[in-house]
């Protein structure tokens, strides 16, 4: 042991996580090596947490004996901000807490306000919203497909997935003007109609995404090392998942097919066939497979939307000053990462009295200690990469 380290250790009060603490190994008793658990700060700046999630873990060698996520490093007070914004501004706001599911978030808020105002949204607007939600879902899933591969050390899928993301972003940009924060929804409809050529481009892009999705299957699911790294790792039981409030792909991987697009359809999901891919084991491999299957399922929905898209207006007649009537409403939507909920309380003014968001990432992160218990440090990335969370969505 170096002198510097020795002096810090002998001084006594070594804080957990301080440099000297890792190196204390005492030999006691009959020559048996007593080891001490090491306290390790993973994050808030750690590549496996993609963002600023902090997980404090105790490791015995490479084995994790305890884990505790610490959230809040990215708290931006969106719920409080919403109390001082009118409804149009809130739509721009909710684009930002989960930046990968921007469109699905804004639809949720718009639905809440429209249901309170009992607005009849034109058919065309609803079909376009449905289609855009699914494009956004594919974009979101591609991001996790790429980052999961990257965390396991496969760098190539990252670049491939960003190629498709770029195509989809380009498509959505042509309609919405945004690449990440779309702000395309308005209370009562949409900002603009689709531009010329959008439908044709969509039609052409769907088979491309399907074909490339097959490439990811071949590249990752078919890879021996990938299977060895993910099969049986971080297996989640359905009962535990439901207890923790886990939703989305992580829940579907355990075999529970709860999806509010099917159980409580909104937009036009009751008029299209929504396939909810499920798996059985709930391990990292299954979570990843479900994610890839969902991309295919979204492609199917987009094709149905393209076939059914009616002509007509894209916005209902709304008053200049949008005011939700007094009352409260809870709207739930199936966001790409799971169940999104918007609890809106209005006192009749142009701003909500209170807006509470239920975000899927928060509940997904909750199960991390349960999943990490007893796994190896290397499996930590296989697990955290596959429970699918966005840190902004955790902290809001």
């Amino acid at each position, binding site marked *: 042991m*170096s*002198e*510097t*380290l020795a002096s*810090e250790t002998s001084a006594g009060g070594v804080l957990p996580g301080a*440099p*000297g603490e*890792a*190196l204390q190994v005492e030999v006691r008793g009959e020559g048996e090596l007593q080891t001490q658990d*090491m306290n*390790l700060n993973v994050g808030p700046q*750690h*590549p*496996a947490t993609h963002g600023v999630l902090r997980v404090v873990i105790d490791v015995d060698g*490479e084995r994790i004996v305890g884990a505790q996520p610490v959230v809040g490093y990215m708290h931006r007070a969106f719920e409080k901000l919403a109390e001082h914004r009118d409804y149009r501004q809130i739509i721009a706001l909710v684009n930002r807490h989960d930046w990968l599911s921007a469109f699905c978030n804004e639809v949720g808020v718009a639905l809440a306000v429209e249901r309170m105002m009992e607005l009849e949204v034109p058919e065309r607007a609803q079909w376009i919203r449905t289609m855009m939600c699914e494009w956004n879902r594919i974009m979101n899933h591609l991001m996790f497909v790429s980052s999961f*591969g*990257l*965390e*396991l*050390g*496969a*760098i*190539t899928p*990252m*670049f*491939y997935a960003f*190629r498709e993301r770029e195509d989809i972003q380009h498509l959505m940009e042509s309609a919405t003007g945004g690449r990440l924060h779309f702000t395309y929804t308005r209370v009562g409809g949409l900002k603009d109609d689709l531009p010329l050529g959008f439908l044709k481009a969509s039609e052409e892009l769907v088979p491309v995404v399907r074909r490339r999705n097959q490439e990811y299957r071949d590249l*990752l699911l078919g*890879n021996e*090392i*990938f299977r*060895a*790294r993910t099969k049986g790792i971080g297996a989640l039981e359905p009962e535990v998942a439901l207890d923790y409030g886990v939703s989305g792909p992580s829940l579907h991987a355990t075999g529970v097919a709860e999806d509010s697009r099917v159980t409580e359809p909104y937009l036009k999901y009751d008029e299209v066939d929504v396939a909810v891919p499920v798996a059985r084991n709930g391990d990292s491999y299954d979570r990843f497979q479900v994610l890839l299957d969902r991309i295919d399922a979204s492609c199917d929905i987009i094709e149905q939307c393209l076939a059914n898209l009616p002509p007509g207006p894209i916005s209902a007649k709304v008053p200049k000053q949008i005011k939700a009537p007094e009352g409260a409403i809870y709207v739930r939507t199936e966001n790409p990462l799971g169940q999104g909920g918007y609890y809106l309380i209005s006192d009749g003014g142009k701003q909500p009295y209170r807006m509470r968001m239920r975000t899927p990432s928060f509940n997904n992160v909750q199960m991390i200690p349960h999943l990490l218990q007893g796994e*190896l*440090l*290397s*499996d*930590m*990335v296989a697990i955290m990469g596959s429970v699918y969370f966005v840190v902004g969505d955790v902290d809001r």
Partner: protein
Amino acid sequence: MESIFTFDSLLFTVLVKVLVIVAFFFVAALVVGYLEHKVMGHMQDRTGPMEAGLGPVKHGVGQLVADGAKFLQKEDIIPRSADPWVFALAPGVALVPTLTILVVIPFGPGVWAENLDLGLFFALAASGVTVIGVLMAGWASANKFSLMGAIRDAAQLIAYELPLVLAGAAVALQAGTLSLVGIVERQNELLLFGAVPVWYGIPQFVGLGLFFVAAMAELNRPPFDMPIADSEIIAGHMTEYTGLRFAFFLLSEYAGMVVLSALATVLFLGGWYPWPGAELPDGPLGAVIGTVVTLAKIIILTLLMTWARATFPRLREDQLQTMAWTILIPLALAQIVVIAIVIVVLP
């Protein structure tokens, strides 16, 4: 045959040899690094470096030189709780073994620095020293992630040095010499079934595979890069390093690729001979052709390593150990037994 770098004056000879080896070390690391940037870039649907160039030649050929210049300017940070001497020495300790192996590697007829009778032994022994540098770095950094990386690296070395040495031993057995020059020359005389000229890579294809896999593990190249897994333990022993010292670690990785590919070339792929049983002209022409052939083979092997990096996810430390102890080492031992029997039965 004498080394072509031999002159009448001993001092001058030593000076020339040292200069040639150090120059080759840096140039080879830069070339392989550049190739990896570009080839992996194109595999991943991007172009790799495009701007930095040397004079009129663009396509990023000067990228690594520019990187080197950048590393030189960086502040040399030594963490407060680090052990400054060990911390500062570690990159050098990791770098020097790679440099010393180059001494015994023959690149063409006469193109070597030293033809040691124990060449293979020397090369394999020196390659194991790198891990001491890594352990020093991991320990002295006073960083838990670094320490874990260094311990993973040491564990990996113990598991992988054995198949590497055993595969090399089988070649020495067949060649009847430990001199790398001797191995290349014997190899070219080998006739399979008394008629077909082949290199050791054909009868010892198992050994070639083992050697290549073990070499990748030894170099911490993906899919065996757990000691430096950046998504788990954030580059392991290199976490706390900046500037030139960090560049030294990078250099030793790329130069290590060259050195171990060169060893594989010499042991299994016929060294400087373009095809099995080939004859090279005497004199400088032969030396040039031989060197070009060796370098081409080295580059092909390093490109294979790059390909593996672009394709595979990372294995887990315990899976790697299981693979080494239950598959690779028994296989290597079995191969030695088979080779020994064949040598005795068919003299």
